[in-house]
């Protein structure tokens, strides 16, 4: 389905996650962040870029990965993306949230 984000038509799934990563940029990112009540800072972007890199390499995202990332510790990760940090940060990063098989 399509959704207007940053005055553009963007392809998203039922839960508002981007379907085409090529449509992601900082403008789109900041709009999605706004909907999640997150105000983006350079710190947020460092985490977002780390997640995007992991996704590109098809490595699963997990709290363990965050702990070992060297980018951010878990406490700060929760502070940057309050609520479900992986669920929210992946949405902002324009990549799929961690999933199971059903």
């Amino acid at each position, binding site marked *: 389905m399509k959704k207007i984000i940053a005055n553009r038509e963007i392809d998203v799934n039922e839960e508002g996650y981007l379907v085409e990563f090529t449509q992601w940029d900082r403008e789109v990112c900041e709009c999605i962040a706004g909907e999640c009540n997150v105000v983006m800072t350079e710190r947020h972007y460092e985490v977002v870029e780390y997640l995007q890199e992991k996704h590109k390499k098809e490595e699963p995202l997990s709290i363990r990965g965050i702990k070992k990332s060297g980018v951010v510790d878990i406490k700060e990760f929760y502070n940057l993306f309050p609520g479900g940090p992986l669920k929210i940060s992946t949405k902002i990063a324009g990549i799929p949230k961690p*999933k199971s098989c059903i």
Partner: protein
Amino acid sequence: MKNLIILGAGTSGTMMANHLVSKLPKKEWSITIIDQFKTHYYQPGFLFLPFDIYTTKQVKKNGKKFIPKDVNYIQEKIELIVPDENKVNLENGTILDYDILIVATGTKIAPDEIEGMNGAEWYQSIFDFYTYEGAKALRDKLRTWEGGKLVVHITEMPIKCPVAPLEFAFLADSFFKHKGIRDKVDITYVTPLGGAFTKPKATEALHYLLEEKNIKEVTDFNIERVDYKNNKIIDYADTEVEYDLLVTVPTNMGDALIERSGMGDDLNFVPTHKATLQTKDYENIFAIGDATNLPASKAGSVAHFEAEILTDNILRYIKGEPLKEEFDGHANCFVETGNGKALLIDFNYTHEPVEGTFPFPGVGPLKLLKESRTNHMGKMAFRWIYWNMLIKGIHIPFVSATMSEKGKNFE
């Protein structure tokens, strides 16, 4: 004479030995399989053992029965893989040379990864059911447990058979109903993911199961520690969930051998090409099943489909032909929902489970993503198929290694 060595005689390793023994010329190739343990477990049965649905005898057999007689079967602990020298060192000092190596060492639970999990209450009020020992200890506990807060919990992903904890919660609901104490048991499902169901079609089709069975859901729960003195699990956001009986799926990790040999990722899984099953670092080493880092489900059905494709790719590798990028992440799993019913799901890397019919488009007899008694009978029949066909490498009729899109309602 050239040597092909298979490490691990579990589901994947045993299947590969059976496939390859009839395909490789005996005069040119010697096949060896190594595993330190004598027993071959029917791991899907571990789900049923705690509820006294299966007996211990139904889930284990002597592994030797399933290894073809033309394959050398070595029962020794593997000390190290030395990939730069094409050697495998055993604990007893034997050093074996290989031309081709297949890593099928699986995944193990690692309860030590979480503070307080593998402590004084392990197998007292905290249990796993992913090991024979855990499932059996939990069976003994459930036989006398009089009720309270049952928490079914996933520590972190990826795990073997991601639907098993959900099936456990469903079967627990049935079990306590039959026992007449369901009103004394509070069941909570705790997951690090965004929901018990995470795919849109499955959520829509199946969320009613949780409501119908009165199973509470705690989502986005990333466990930090178990406070076993006060019977609660605590996550990084300081959320607490109290339990009387904690049934957890601990962190899953690849075998310590992979770490010792310097061949794994953070979780000791072997980086593997997701379509060819060749390892990313060594062209004469292949990996299969739970031992890989593939973004597919860790499950026997996945290993079964991989085995058919890996066999072809090993033959291609021997002939010097390019490998086929054929594996699509295909998985096909029965999901028990309790009360004598089950679902069937069929999916791959790119297609989520959807409704439809299987294996014959439009006919069935099995229905996808819908509860039915036929699906439950399929799951029960599968134990026979496993021991008599699957690990012997016999092709299961009408079920192809790659996923079929026919008979499925994608939109």
